[in-house]
């Protein structure tokens, strides 16, 4: 028997995905409700602009709705959605030439660091990285993906992924040094 619409919130995700695959709009709505925060946060880290991030996240869910009937394993919905999100972000980056507006760390204005929220500071620091470096760093730190997974997901060579993450990490460490835990001072 099909669960009533209000019951979806308590249903296991695989069941809700199963129903969404059959074209149930209520089930898909529940999936959007459950996953929206994750995808919107991921997009915010990728682009650093809340409005654009929500727009891209909306595109992700619209693509998901269009293609969900092709999803073979309901249990892999999360990974499938992440793949869609990365694909949407890569398409957006290519279209808008994300490399063009990326600043170098040296040129970034860091004078107001810590005056705004932590998330904004992080987004601002991320925006100083070039598009591919930012994507690799976000997938590594925000999504906790391994280098091999990032390589598989983005289509970038493993060596490139590693160097992007190393470079991105070094830059973020420099920019966000104010957030690093204070080292105990040397008694001498």
């Amino acid at each position, binding site marked *: 028997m099909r669960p009533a619409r209000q019951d979806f919130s308590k249903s296991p995700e695989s069941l809700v995905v199963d129903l969404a695959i059959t074209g149930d*709009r209520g089930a*898909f*709505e529940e999936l*959007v*409700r459950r996953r*929206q*925060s994750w995808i*919107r*946060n991921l997009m915010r*880290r990728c682009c650093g602009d809340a409005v654009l991030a*929500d727009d891209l*996240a*909306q595109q992700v*869910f*619209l693509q998901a*709705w*269009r293609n969900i009937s092709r999803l073979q394993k309901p249990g892999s919905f999360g990974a499938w959605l992440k793949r869609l999100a990365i694909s949407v972000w890569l398409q957006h980056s290519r279209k808008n030439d994300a490399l063009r507006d990326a600043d170098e760390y040296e040129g970034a204005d860091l004078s107001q660091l810590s005056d705004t929220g*932590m*998330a904004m500071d*992080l*987004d601002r620091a991320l925006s100083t990285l070039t598009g591919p470096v930012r994507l690799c760093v976000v997938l*590594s*730190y*925000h999504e*906790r993906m*391994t*280098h091999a997974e990032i390589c598989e997901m983005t289509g970038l060579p493993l060596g490139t992924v*590693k160097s992007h*993450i*190393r470079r991105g*990490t070094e830059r*973020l*460490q420099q920019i*966000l040094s104010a*957030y*690093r*835990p204070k080292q105990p001072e040397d008694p001498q």
Partner: protein
Amino acid sequence: MTDNRDPALQALFAASEVELPGEAFTAGVMEKTNGMKRRAIFIRLFAGLALVACAWFLSMPVQHVVNLLAQALTTPLIHLHDQLLAQILLPLNTAAFPVALAVLALRRIHRRLFS
């Protein structure tokens, strides 16, 4: 370099992830899916009508061309006076035979070049 991450940065990323209120966003997405559904229905309807119109307008000319082709391909290349011999050689003595040979030869060349 291994998959090891800087713990301080990792903590910063984790702390920056906030639970975003989703009612307005979800409503926006569902409204767009409604529009997509209407558009899909319209496109299917339009494509169906276009197909019917094409079939209507093109059925006569297409049938005419098919008839002409059938006639041309089955025309004997050499006129033989012996009826029995003409019947026996009919499969080889038509325009279709050299055309079929040419198609087979092109297919073989294509396979040799591209596979």
